[in-house]
């Protein structure tokens, strides 16, 4: 009887030992830490592998967690590149002098707004903050012209936002830089008093819009497009505020080369590939993001890059590194 029971272990043990062996044997390859989701990144990495024959291994995790990992690893990191979802995390790694300066030939591929001033990282794609709304419950002409209008009584308990989200915090940082600390705080307090509903991240904002829980939301631009891809009748829409409004911030995902990298040449090939027309076309056509180079066929669901940059507030992404100030502000007004 007793032996019968052990049979389970007899089968399972060899199998798991085999799995362990498979997992530990791996060849020398290019290792990337990607704070961008596998679902967005994998197809283009596969393409790169096919074209160059360089094998790429990716560790996917949340951008902040990866930045923390890199800081813990220091010069012992196995990673060659850090591909982050936002500029803040790149800044944190850059501050510890862990990035190698990128060659001019790569940096000059993108407009100066889309790269680090000191040349330690370069943007790979852009995203915009937008105003998402319910076309059933908000008429076009009623839509607020500015993010500052959202504190008006007419929007009481009707707006959704995501204060723990990195993109939202980047927006608050840019707001502080553009209109000053006092006005930013006043806006945050006004939103809170006006009953803005907190969501965990962008996706739940879109779902709440469709469900009728809120009428307006402040997400990034691509989430709704992904909902619409599966269901063109999805009951939500999005637009921009008036030109130069802080609510139209354009933010980036970017990549940096680690000093500890053992195969810098292959790593730079990948960075170049990500800035190539082919990869940029993929980012805009399949992932619904904005390209960072010219000469890409625009996605019909997106504005052309030049129009977007006209709507966006004039703001340098390199000023985005005061996340601490933003977080302190959000704590002071008890939103975090």
């Amino acid at each position, binding site marked *: 009887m007793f032996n019968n029971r052990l049979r389970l272990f007899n089968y399972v043990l060899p199998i798991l030992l085999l799995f362990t062996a498979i997992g530990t044997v791996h060849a020398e390859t290019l290792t990337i830490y990607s704070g961008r989701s596998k679902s967005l990144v994998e197809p283009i990495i596969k393409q790169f592998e096919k074209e160059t024959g360089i094998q790429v291994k990716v560790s996917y995790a949340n951008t902040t967690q990866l*930045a*923390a990992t890199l800081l813990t690893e220091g010069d012992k990191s196995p990673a060659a590149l850090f591909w982050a979802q936002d500029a803040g995390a790149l800044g944190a790694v850059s501050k510890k002098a862990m990035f190698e300066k990128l060659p001019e030939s790569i940096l000059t591929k993108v407009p100066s707004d889309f790269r680090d001033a000191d040349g330690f990282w370069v943007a790979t794609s852009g995203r915009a903050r937008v105003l998402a709304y319910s076309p059933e419950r908000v008429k076009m002409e009623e839509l607020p012209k500015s993010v500052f209008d959202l504190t008006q009584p007419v929007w009481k308990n009707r707006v959704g936002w995501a204060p723990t989200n990195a993109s939202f915090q980047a927006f608050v940082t840019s707001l502080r830089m553009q209109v000053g600390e006092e006005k930013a705080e006043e806006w945050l307090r006004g939103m809170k008093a006006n009953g803005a509903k907190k969501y965990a991240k*962008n996706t739940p904002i879109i779902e709440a819009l*469709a*469900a009728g829980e809120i009428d307006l939301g402040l997400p990034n631009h691509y989430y709704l497009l992904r909902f619409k891809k599966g269901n063109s009748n999805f009951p939500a829409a999005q637009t921009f505020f008036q030109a130069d409004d802080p609510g139209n911030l354009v933010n980036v995902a970017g990549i940096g080369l680690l000093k500890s990298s053992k195969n810098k040449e292959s790593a730079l090939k990948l960075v170049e590939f990500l800035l190539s027309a082919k990869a940029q076309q993929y980012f805009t056509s399949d992932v619904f993001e904005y390209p960072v180079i010219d000469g890409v066929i625009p996605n019909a669901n997106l504005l052309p890059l030049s129009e977007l940059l006209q709507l966006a507030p004039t703001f340098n992404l390199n000023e985005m590194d005061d996340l601490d100030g933003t977080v302190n502000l959000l*704590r002071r007004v008890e939103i975090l």
Partner: protein
Amino acid sequence: MNAHVKNTHRYFSMSAVVAGIPIVMVGIGGLIPLVYLLTKAFSAEGSALVDIVFRWRNARLFLNTLLLTVGVLVLDLLIATPAAWLTSRVNLKGRRLFTVLCALPLAIPGYVMAYALLALGGNTGIVAQLFGTSIPRLSGYWGALLALSAYTSPYLFLNLRTALLGLDPSLEESARSLGYKSHQTFFLVILPQLRPAFYASGLLISLHVLGDFGVVSLMRYETFSYALYTEYMLSFEHVYAAWLALMLLAFTACLLYLEAKLLNRVALHRAGRGTSRQLSQIQLGTWHTPAHLYLSLVAFVTVVVPAGAIFLWIFRGFDPKALQGLLNALIGSLSVAIPAGILCALLAVPFAYIGVRHPSRISNALERVGYVVYAIPPLAFALSLIFFLLHTASFIYKTLPVLIYACTLHFLAEAIGPVRSSLYQASPNLEEAARSLGYPRIQAFFRTLFPILMRGMLTATALVFLATMKELPLTFLLSPAGYETLALNVWSYTTEAMFAEAAPYALAILLFSGVFVSVLIRQEEEI
């Protein structure tokens, strides 16, 4: 007489030493993150410390957490106690199916459960589309309560079921013969015997609620983990997060102290001669239908609804390309979940053993080391391990064995409860008898106790397997580059609002967890 006492004493202390080796090893494993947290914590600056850690808002969040924990415990009791009794002690048709269904919510990641329950309500919700009228969306306290209870109830269910299966029928028969009615027998004789199972699973459930962010954030109910998570998301150094984590650990220590006090002097094994017979099954008769209705309702809310909602994701624009990684991810998931499950079950034995057989302050404390490790935020645990490995044994950094080690250590607490429950039911006389028949110590243990512990160990394996199948933070930071699991894919796709692509991965977790758990349950019932 004297000689006998002396002999027993010597035997016990030797076995305590043997059992102590793995415990000390786990303890050292747990010390790494603890030292790491303390080092971080004491590099904090005073003023910011007050602003971030010791502010009133955190106390309010903590109160919210307590309310939620108590609510989840109560609701889990209501869900799991009758379900465990019905599937273990009653001649119910479809017992195995219901057992698997009651264990299965554990295979659904918390945030997926929340997404699924949220999808029911609202103008565009599933209910509105099926029946034409919309119900309000779940949110806040009640939403968090329902989602968390649904997916933590298997902890209580599986622990109770193991304990119920191992009960000694003679106690109940004595109670009956003394004139107790059957409900009196249940409340006065059976329930008290389940105390270790209640306490162990209560601890696990509490620690889950304390550490959860996925459910409460989607349900928009702010708990203490809001503060913790915010800090982990925003800072790259985690100095203040270390303080919040230590506060969480202090609270865990209070819970553990309470549990130890409550468990003090529990002795549930047979005292008389002879061995326990197989349990007789209660004939349900006319109560069959209500019992089936009850179990069906539980299974409907905790499994069918979330699984159905996940299935409906497919219709949000499915791209078959997403299936390409399925096999790879499945192999990845199983190659960690199976070894971690088995290792945890084996490691739990010495922990439970010294706690039950050698109760003392030291052994009580040692037994609870597993829970302390469990309460360390996984992110802090992973980062401390990275730091430690890179400075000692960098060649194994980012290899699969490290991930298995981390999952085993982290989830060990889930395995201790069921093993301990079965150990409480085994009389120490058994080992002594085997010893007196001339078996060496170790062999005496394997001949007598091990078969009794097998039931608890199978449950433990199931619990850890289910937990590891959906594990994220440790996998994120410790797995080899390029390694994939089903859970990583579910997370990756849902994060980008690509629910259709996430669906097959989430369903695969459910399916393979179901198969694995039903195999274990079959084994367990044959014991």
